[in-house]
Every structure is written in structure tokens, then in C-alpha cells.
């Protein structure tokens, strides 16, 4: 009998962890734009990489240094 109570509490704890994750995701703005992330994953390698402008990259095709313009 007491086992079921422990199980219920344990599963509730896990569920609460997931709820916390959901709340974090909403607050960090991940639900604001559900369309563009889907498009981003279609481009390979380092799309979305943040810019140090001097970053070297290994892209397909031309493997030259990025020039300033």
C-alpha cells in the first residue's frame, strides 16, 4: 500500500521536472517562432553559429578565408 504512494510521489516529481522544462522553454522564447528553426536545420554545418567575425569555417565548396568587405 505504501509503495503506491512512493511511486506516485516519484512520478509526480519526474512530471514536475518536465513541467519546469516546459516553463523554461516558454520563458526563453522558444515558442515565439516555430517556423524558422525548422528552416535552419536544413542548412548544414555551422548555421546559427554566432559571429566572431574572424571565425574560420570549413564550409563546403570554396575553402577560402572570409574576407571583409
Amino acid at each position, binding site marked *: 500500500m505504501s509503495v503506491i504512494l512512493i511511486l506516485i510521489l516519484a512520478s509526480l516529481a519526474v512530471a514536475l521536472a518536465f513541467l519546469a522544462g516546459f516553463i523554461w522553454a516558454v520563458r526563453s522564447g522558444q515558442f515565439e*517562432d516555430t*517556423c524558422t528553426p525548422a528552416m*535552419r536545420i536544413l542548412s548544414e554545418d555551422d548555421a546559427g553559429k554566432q559571429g*566572431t567575425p574572424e*571565425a574560420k569555417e570549413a564550409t563546403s*565548396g570554396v575553402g577560402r578565408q572570409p574576407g571583409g*568587405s
Partner: protein
Amino acid sequence: MSTAIEQSLTGAPEQGLKSLTLGAPGQPGVVPGHPEQPLTAARSPSPADVTSAPEPVFGDGKDAFHRVPDFTRKESDAVERVPTGFGGRETSRAGDGELSCFHCGEPCPDPSLTKDNKAFCCRGCLFVHDLLAESGLGQFYDLSRHPGVRVRRSAKRQQWAYLNDPALQQRLLDFTDGKVSRVTFQIPAIHCVACVWLLENLFRLQPGIGRSQVNFPRREVTITFATEKLPLSDLVALLASIGYEPVLTLGELEARKGDPARKRQWLQVGIAGFAFGNIMLLSLPAYIGLDSLSGPLFKIISGYLSLALAAPVLLYSASDYWQSARLSLRQRVLTLDVPIALGLAALYAQSAYEVVLGRGNGYLDSLAALVFFLLCGRVFQQKTYDRMAFDRDYKCFFPLSVTRVTAAGEESVAISNLRVGDRLRLRNGELIPADGRLLSGPACIDYSFVTGEAVPVAKAPGEYLYAGGRQIGGAIEIETVKAVSQSHLTSLWNHETFQKERASSLNTLTNRYSRRFTLIVIAVAVGAAVFWVAAGEAGRALKAFTSVLIVACPCALALAAPFALGTAQRLLARMQVFVKNALVIERMAQVDAIVFDKTGTLTAGAAEGVAFRGMADGRWQMANTGQLSALEEGWVCAVARHSTHPLAVRIAQSLADKVLAEPVEGFAETPGCGIGGRVQGHEVRLGSRAWLAAGGATSLSTALPSGVAQGSVVCLAIDGTLRGAFVLTNAVRPETEQLLRGLGKHYELALLSGDNERERERFRDLFGSDAPLHFNQSPLDKLGFIRGLQESGRRVMMVGDGLNDAGALKQSDIGVAVIEKAGAFSPASDVILEAGRVPRLSEVLILARKATQIVRLSFGISAVYNLAGISIAAAGILSPVICAILMPVSSITVVLFACGATNLAAKRAGLTR
């Protein structure tokens, strides 16, 4: 005598803007090509033009600003992937053997402009291609086919210099701390995955750019950059040079409205759903009758757990309902939120009572379910369309900068910094930002968006010009007389109509029904209690009282409207009719009068309206004889293309398929008269009859034949012989006649136009004999007319497209804005419609009426469930299980019915074609 109105190439009717003209009416005068400015062709460049990108012509639909995907393309269709390597890609060939540009996909007129086996249409595309190659961004071409955007307007860096003004930057930037700044631009040219990728890799093109993030549905990009290394003007210049020029209108200076409510809604739904699921699981033993087996401890613990889970639901997820109920009680209006709040309170109180007594979970599962379903309905109802802006005012139409002429020379200055008395220089296609006086250069102003006049008005120096008009032709100079916000046009927005929000419609169908509902429920609850007290069972009386309040589920009631109207809203969106929110559909069903604007709404100055009447032997021929040969049409098109006058542009557009890539020698445009040039050795002249006669064209004896439809007439002479005339009518959009006849049966119609009376007869036919037709209406006149109709008790729908309709659209009960293509400007409205869909208006209204009927039927269904539930409750035998079954079942039935019936109604109304 012929009723045709003959006009010269510029011909503007003498009554200009009725209440706007001051001084003498303008004389006909076309703007000559300014001597220093090359007359550049408007469309695809002839070989001679490859070296410089052509100037955009007002109305040219394909410049980089408005390169947006086909209106019907859904966002998910934007993904295209051609998985070939960058280096080895072959030039694609268009079906007819023509080369298409590797960068932008447009036809390449100059086959010699190639690099590495790839063809390009212009140097601009080649430049961007090389730039991307140097910066290691070649993957751009792998992600989509012809992903590039053609740079139509080679901009100079100084053009953006005004952006470095700190006061302006403060309003334009999202954030800045001196070192790092963040700005959000709207870029309509974003249309595919490759665009997203390129813009997010902008840091590789320019040092100083940090992070950039694209929001594709809104066509926005947010860029973080180092202010010291990269001035804002250079950033915008970079974007423009690769074809992604941002939209910079006065509206960009307004604070961007955030949407924190959205996040809150997601959280509320999430928490309610979480609690709903878990409480139901905890209540499961009670449903199947096993709870007594596990001993009293289980009941107590699960009871308190459920209570704890339900508390955030009550306090946080349902908080909007508490607030709304309190507000509506304060206003003494019974909305649906009152019985909802009542029900929630009763549910929680009764359940708390039962939990404390150790009797189980009470009704907490129904509580959580109720809140969860209600919130789902609200989310469904509040569908928004990110690309459509329903709240624009004139600021989004005006550009951000204009060229000011000072003693020191020309400079680009922000409109917000303009002072009275400034001298401004406006080139072809530029907007007049403030009321002013024309200083130099004959002007030809297109006021169609501002007053609705279909034909551009010619103005002479010294005349007063109104803000919002667009200059066509060469450059002019004006002196500002009023500040931008005080101009005649923008003062419209000071009218009280714009000051108040639309009276928040608490008077929806749902709220009206819920008034009766609440009163009946309270009456039954009290009645039941009294009955049981009288029958001697006081305990049962209390139970009956709370049970009635609990089970009288406003849930189904509250879901009927959101789901029926929300489904209707989505169905309409599939038809390219975008509705601001679901409640607009309910208002549409109550409309009984429809007012139309003329220019741009019912008519369109498109290539369809051009017809040619031949002339031979001094006599006009019947229609369809004496037509030009294909070669002659090519000559005419070649000459007409060099002019920027709207009539010449339309002629050229209608003959566009016959265009010859032949140079035109000796092109000359004579103000007020016509244009002429030599093609392949033949002299081609287009213009007014008088001018052609003076130039020696023979056989000009007779007037135009009767039966020529009203419109502008442009005569044509080839090699000195008058060959005939082009008759240009402002074509009424096809199917308009059918639409008006159909609507005329059920609605009162009216026409309000800012144009003059010359088309009255034609529209009298279309509208029937009863409908009021008013011309020469100013924006305030239109507003007043609508108000008059409303005061006589009618519900008015206004259909319009321009700034001159803004007041009328705001005042009317439903404002429908018509736009030519996605991303074009539309004044604030409730519904946005693509121009080609105007004929479907009758079907839209039918769907709105049907959807409202479906809402009423859904109320009926929910009433049946409520009847059953209340009967059980009043007898005092309600138990949590019954409640837990009744609530979801009724909700789901109502939702399924509402969605299904609306879909069926749409199919029957023919909307899913």
C-alpha cells in the same frame, strides 16, 4: 457626339482633388525627362543597360522591395533544396532556351555576361555572387534554386547617412549601450531557406556584425552589431547591396509592440494541461471504484495532492477569467466569464470540503479539465497571421528619409527632422512627405492612394502639393509649408475615430446567450435548494445548490464560438482572406450595408484596359480591323518603354510580349503632348492628336468614333501617318459585375470615390439604380458618410485600399482592406483581402452568416447536456464521476460539431475551390 474623353498623354481632368485643390487647376504638362537624368527603361534591361541597374518605376511589381513569394505559397513551401556542389553547378536553362541568371533566376539578355559557366542577368547579380564566393558563403546557392534577389536600385552609401543621427537611432534601434547595438529590420525580400541562412551568416560578410537571427513568418531579421566598428548606415548599405534592403518607413520609428501575453498564454495552458492529466490519474481509482480498497490514507493523500495541483490552475491559469468577471460585473454586463468564475469557485469550494473530510478528490479533475478546455478554445480563437499587419497607419506608408537641398548641397535627411521651409528634391517614384509648394519642375503627381484619383495630376510651379502623393517623371523641388504630422493627409489621424479603440464588443453572441444562461442557472440552483429545504433535507439542499452551479458547464458554451469562428477564420485564410480575429466573423454576419471605394478596389489600372482602334484612309475602322502588325507593336513598345508616364507604361506593358531589343534613337518626350523616337528606321510617335497633327501626321479629320469606351486616348503615328489610337480604360476587375449584382440582393450598396464623376454612368450600371454613388470624396467625407449610415441604424462594411479610406475603414463596423500583393501597404482594417479575391466577398459573407448559425446550434447542443446535468444535480445525486464524464463529453461534442459543420458549410458555399 462621342462620349469619349480625349486626353493628351498627361491629360488630367481639370477638377483635381475636390476639397484639396487650392488655386488654379493644373495645366496639362508632362514632365520631360530631366536633361541630366538618363531615361532608363523600366523593365528588363536592354543590352545597353547591363552596366547600371535601372531605376525602379512606380508600380513596377518586381523590384527588390517587393520580391515576395507568390501569395498562395505557404511558409512550409519555402524550402527548396538542390543538392549540388557550388563549383560544378550548371547554368539552368529556361524552357524556351533562354538563359536564366544563376543568382536570381531572371532572364539574361546578355549572353556574354558569364563567369565559370554561369550566366548572370546583370552586373549586380554578378557582384553579389562574387562577394559571397569571397566570403565563403557559396552554400547559399546550394540551399535553394536561384535564391538571390536582384538588386534593382544601386544605392549609394550617402543615401543612408541620415541613419547615423543619434536621435533617430534611439527610436530605430531595439537596444544600444554605446558599444553594442541591436536592431530589427523588416525585409520583404526574404523568401526561402537560403535567405535565412545568408542573413544568419551575415557576420562573415562584414566584421563588426555579431549575431543575426531571422524570424521568417514575420520576414524580420534582428542584428546585433558593434556600434563603433560599423555605423548603422553601413549595415543597411550592406544589406541593400546583397538585395535584402530593409523597409524603412516612418512606422519603423514607432516602438515595436511586444507580445508578452503570448508567453503567458502558453504557460497557462501548459500548467492547466499538466494538472488536468495528473489529477485525472490520481482520480482514476475513484472512477473504477477501487479507492476504498487502498485504505483511507490513499484518499487523503491523493486528495491533498490534487488540491495542491489544482491551486495553480485556479490562481494562475484561470486568472484572466477572474479579472474579466470582475470587470464585467463592475460594468454591470453579464459576460460568459461570470458563470465560469462562479463555476470554478463552486468546484474548488466543494472539492476542498470533500478533501478535508477525507472523502476523495472531489471535483478537482473537472475543475482542471474545465480550465484546460477553455484555454484551448482561447488559443484556437486567437490565431494571428504574422505577415499581415492590421494596424497600420500613414507612418508605414511614408519613407523614413527624403533628399533635402541646402546651400551646402543635397543631403539625405530623416522625415522626422524636417522643418517648415525646407527645400526638398523628389525624384521619380518618391513620396511627398509634407504639404508644400512646388518650386521647380513641372510635376505629375499620382494621388491615387491618397485621394483615390485614378489619373495623375499635373501641377505647375507655385501650386500647392499635398503630402502622400507620388511624383512621376523627372525630379522636382518643393518647399515644405507644414510639418509632416500636420499635413492635410496625416491630420486625418487626429480625428476622434482614431483616438478611441473600437468599443470592445462585449455584445457578442456568446455573451448575450450567457446572460440568459446565468440567470436560469442561478434560478434553478436557488429553486432546488429551496425545494430540498422545504422537503426537510437541508444537507441535500446545499449539495443540490453547489451541484447545479458545478455542472451547469459553461464549457461547451464557451467553446462553441471560438471553434466555429476560428475554423471559419482558418478556412478564409486558405482563400487568402485574412481576418484579424475570430470575432470579426461574427460582426460580418450582422452587416447589412456595404460601401466600396473605386480606385484600386473595384478598378485596376492594369494592362487589360488597353485596346487599339485602327485608322485608315482618314476613317476610323471598326474594332479589330486595322490593327497593328506584330512588328509595329514591337516598335511602339520599344518607344513607350522609355517613358515613365503611366499611360505609356500601360501601353508598353500590354505589348510587352512583342518587345524588341532594338535601340531607340532620338527619343524625346514633349511635356503635355507626347513621346517619339526612331526604331529600325521608322519614326514612331505617341501622343495627343493636336501634337501629332502639328508634327505633320496626316488624316486627322474626324473625331473619335462613337462607341469608343470612356477612357484615355493616346494616338499613334508611324512614319508621319496616323495609324490609330490606344484607348485605355481603367478596367473594372473581372467578375465585379457579378459580385455587385449578387450582393445587391441582400445588402445596401454604395460607392464612395475620391475620383471625379466621369465614370458615373458605368458604375450606375454596375450598382443598380438605388445605390448612392458619390464622387470627389475626401477622406473625411467618406468617414462622414459611413457615420451617417451607422446613425440610421445600419451595420456598415467598408471595402477600400488606400490611405484616403483609412478614416472610413476605422469608422465602419467591418473594414476590409484590399492589397495588390502580399507585403504591400494596407491601412488599418479588420480584414485584409488580396485584390483578386474581391469577387469572393459574397461567399465570405455567406460563410460568416453560416458560422454564426452554427454557433447558435452549438449552444443548443450544449443546452441539451446542461439540461441532463442540471436535472441530475438538482436531484442532489451528482457525483464526481458523472461530472467528470459530462464535461469532456459535452465539450468534445460541441467542438466536433462546430468544426465539422463549419467545414461543411464552407464546402457548400463553394469556398474550397
